[in-house]
């Protein structure tokens, strides 16, 4: 990082590096403007003669498996994050790599979690060169303080798949934590003591990595049914005592917020869907597992019952609240990207209408379409929104890394994108003049719902017309902003960001949307 990074201005007016970790970059060209050509990448040809005829691919431990995979200095090692903050496998793999003396790895998780902060020591000791994947908490601080050797690359779930498919990231070894697996490598996430539901984030890794290791704490006799990961893609299977801490993999019960302000926002969003006519027979929506999103589902469910409306499908992250919709016949299907609580895990493991999806089906830019644009409405959060409806979801207002992008960017393709946010947090206004870090272009964000009113993007005259006559407080975004600034005692001072890029935010197509700058 000693050499100066060249910067270019992208179509969103943001200054972004033209080289990241030695690879040339394309600055963001505008939504839907970038059209890559060529062929997708592929893993090396292998032959079944090289694999045991009895299908038993077990080796004694991860160290052996990594050695057998030929792990070397500078390679890329990947993990999925379906075990969330309870995951033990990623650190196990990285520590095993340290033991065999490998250096300068690029760690490529589908997301990192605070419990993996030991990765900092592995960066300090040189085992990991840098991380491409979401970073928050201690890892996020390490990156934003400029201590990481390479640049962080933040991608959406769909963007990660895109980067793997078009060869931007080549995975040398994928280490896949599996709540259930057989010795052949078939693996499933919805059963076993460490059950996490879907394993969708690991699918790309299993099909595109040169080498694939499955790590399980619940080895069953062949066949492991159902299989989400196909053993035909797997090189080695390692059995361990525990792949994770079940208490942190899924929450026992997901809780609706009790904050009156957040409940009010949730109710506004549900009423908006109803009053705008989006809530109608056969519709679809997606909402996450945050407090506001859960409360929204609860309000919407009551309105759907009142109006006898049924959805065709809902998209998870699934929770008890979506499962109840399914059980009450208020939706035909749950198309589930990740499973957040015990009710979700139980349902995906037993109800054929609760279907595991992957970023390929849902989000991938290089797919022949994806599900995200088939969803009628999506409810998302954000740390900041600006008066042009651009939003930030990855950094605090002071530029420190806060969240991964997750599926957030991909979801913006929905028919109606709603950000459900409080108008201020701890005196810090959420609606501001310009976002600190651009994560989602305003042209894709349709509605900002706060406790003080709902702002509709002027580009969506159809939505403005649809809610005419509704009792909802529809207000210009500027007006809500001015009111909040009055409450907060004036505009907040702009934080001073550094001038050295420490990470980039990719758009769903692989172009560079914005830069994370070093801050103290």
């Amino acid at each position, binding site marked *: 990082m000693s050499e100066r990074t060249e910067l270019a201005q992208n179509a969103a007016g943001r200054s972004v590096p033209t080289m990241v970790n030695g690879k040339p970059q394309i600055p963001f060209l505008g939504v839907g403007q970038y059209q890559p050509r060529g062929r997708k990448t592929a893993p090396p040809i292998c032959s079944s003669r090289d694999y045991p005829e009895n299908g038993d691919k077990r080796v004694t431990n991860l160290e052996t498996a990594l050695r057998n995979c030929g792990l070397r200095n500078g390679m890329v090692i990947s993990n999925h994050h379906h075990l969330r903050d309870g995951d033990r496998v990623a650190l196990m793999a990285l520590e095993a790599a340290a033991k065999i003396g490998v250096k300068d790895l690029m760690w490529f998780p589908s997301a990192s979690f605070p419990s993996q902060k030991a990765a900092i020591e592995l960066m300090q000791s040189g085992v990991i060169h840098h991380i491409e994947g979401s970073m928050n908490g201690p890892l996020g601080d390490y990156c934003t303080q400029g201590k990481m050797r390479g640049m962080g690359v933040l991608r959406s779930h769909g963007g990660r798949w895109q980067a793997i498919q078009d060869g931007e990231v080549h995975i040398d070894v994928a280490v896949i934590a599996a709540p259930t697996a057989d010795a052949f490598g078939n693996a499933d996430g919805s059963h076993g003591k460490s059950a996490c539901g879907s394993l969708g984030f690991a699918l790309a890794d299993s099909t595109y990595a040169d080498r694939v290791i499955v790590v399980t704490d619940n080895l069953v006799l062949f066949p492991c049914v159902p299989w989400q990961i196909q053993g035909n893609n797997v090189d080695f299977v390692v059995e361990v005592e525990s792949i994770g801490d079940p208490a942190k993999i899924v929450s026992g019960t997901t809780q609706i917020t009790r904050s*009156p302000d957040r409940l009010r926002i949730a109710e506004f969003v549900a009423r908006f869907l109803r009053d705008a006519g989006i809530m109608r027979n056969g519709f679809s929506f997606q909402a996450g597992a945050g407090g506001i999103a859960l409360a929204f589902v609860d309000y919407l469910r009551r309105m759907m019952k009142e109006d006898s409306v049924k959805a065709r499908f809902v998209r998870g992250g699934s929770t008890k609240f979506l499962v109840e919709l399914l059980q009450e016949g208020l939706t035909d299907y749950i198309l589930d990207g990740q499973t957040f609580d015990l009710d979700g895990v139980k349902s995906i493991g037993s109800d054929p209408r609760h279907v595991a999806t992957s970023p390929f089906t849902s989000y991938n830019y290089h797919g022949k379409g994806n599900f995200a644009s088939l969803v009628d409405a999506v409810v998302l959060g954000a740390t900041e929104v600006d008066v042009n409806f651009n939003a930030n979801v990855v950094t605090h*207002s002071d530029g420190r890394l806060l969240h991964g992008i997750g599926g957030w960017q991909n979801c913006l393709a929905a028919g109606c994108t709603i950000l459900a946010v409080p108008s201020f947090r701890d*005196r810090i206004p959420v609606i501001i003049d310009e976002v600190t870090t651009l994560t989602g272009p305003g042209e894709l964000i349709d509605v900002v719902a706060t406790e003080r009113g709902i702002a509709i993007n002027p580009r969506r005259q159809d939505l403005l017309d649809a809610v005419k006559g509704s009792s909802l407080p529809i207000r210009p975004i500027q007006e809500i902003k001015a009111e909040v600034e009055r409450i907060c005692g004036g505009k907040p001072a702009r934080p001073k960001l550094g001038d050295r890029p420490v990470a980039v935010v990719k758009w769903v197509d692989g172009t560079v949307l914005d830069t994370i700058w070093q801050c103290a």
Partner: protein
Amino acid sequence: MSSVNTLAIPRPAEAGHWGKEVRSDLHVAIEPRDRGGLEITLESRVGIYYGSSILSQTRQVLESLGVKHARISIHDEGALPFVISARIETAVKRAGLSGNQKALPEERIALPKPTPRDRLRRSRLYLPGSEPKYFINAGLHGADAIILDLEDSVHHGEKDAARILVRNTLHAIDFGSCERMVRINQLPLGLQDLTEVIPEQPDLILIPKVERPEQISQTDRMIDELKSRDRIDRPIWLMPIVESAVGIENAFAIATASPNVCALTIGLEDYTADIGVAKTLEARESQYARTRLVNAAKAAGIQAIDSVFGDVGDLAGLQQWGENSRALGFEGMGCIHPSQIPVIHQAFAPSQIEVDKALKIVAAFEEAQQRGLAVVSLGSKMIDPPVVERARKLVARAKAMEKA
């Protein structure tokens, strides 16, 4: 009460709260000294955005309070300006550094119109007077009123702080269409509360533990004095809270003790304790007290308002309680969480059948008037004048609720 402070020897003092769980508040520690000017240290959760604004506000407040030499250390958890002023003023007064000066927030809301004596008072949302985080959005939830509480929800040692905070809140926070109520402490402590809050012109004062009409006249006199001192000519209504056996027996005298009394309400926790019974969901133990209170209020031509329903999780129970209340003649009740507001409004709303019937009666009456008939009839039924009057009230109330 003011001279005590000015004569006190300056001493270190503190006010407010900080910590990981604290939101929208701050902690101020002040150490008076003889020379050396002001030395301010600030740690703030929002320092990057509002640090310099907080520092300049601190200097301004100290200056307006006449503090010239002191060390001040502030831990801020994202407090809004009206809270910052209040906490600094409290610390300064506790330190014995200031007498009667006030540090009112710079921003002042446009004073809402005075509220009519008989306005809708279905729901009133209690806000603990020492918890600023609840204040700012309290007006959004559609309650007919908010109550800034200085009494039971405020710890003894925090009465002075809450008084100043509530005063600043009335000055700076827009509660929308909510009536702005303050519950003062029992007299005589409540009189100090009045001195602080009346200049900010709340719409209504709740007086707790009223047993005798004299308590009302004493409060009324004090408010009158403060109003004329500050040339305030809008009404400030009184709502006595009756919460003892003696109070119930004196309910009519209390209701008629001042023309400013616009409603009587009952405090059931204290009342049931006073008569030595448990408070139950069925409320048979307070049936007499509640009907007696309703009767006294109606006899005095004012509103009767019920107590609060304490179980925030039990919305069905609340609905039932509210419907029963309304059937007894109450016109509203208190709430301790915004989720109770819509349930209460529904419980106190007349049903569509009642409204339709009332509309028919009023229409029949108007028709009879036009035709110069002395007797009003609807179908085969004769309608007495009180029935018409009740129907008119119900229609007016239903219309007001429609708008509310």
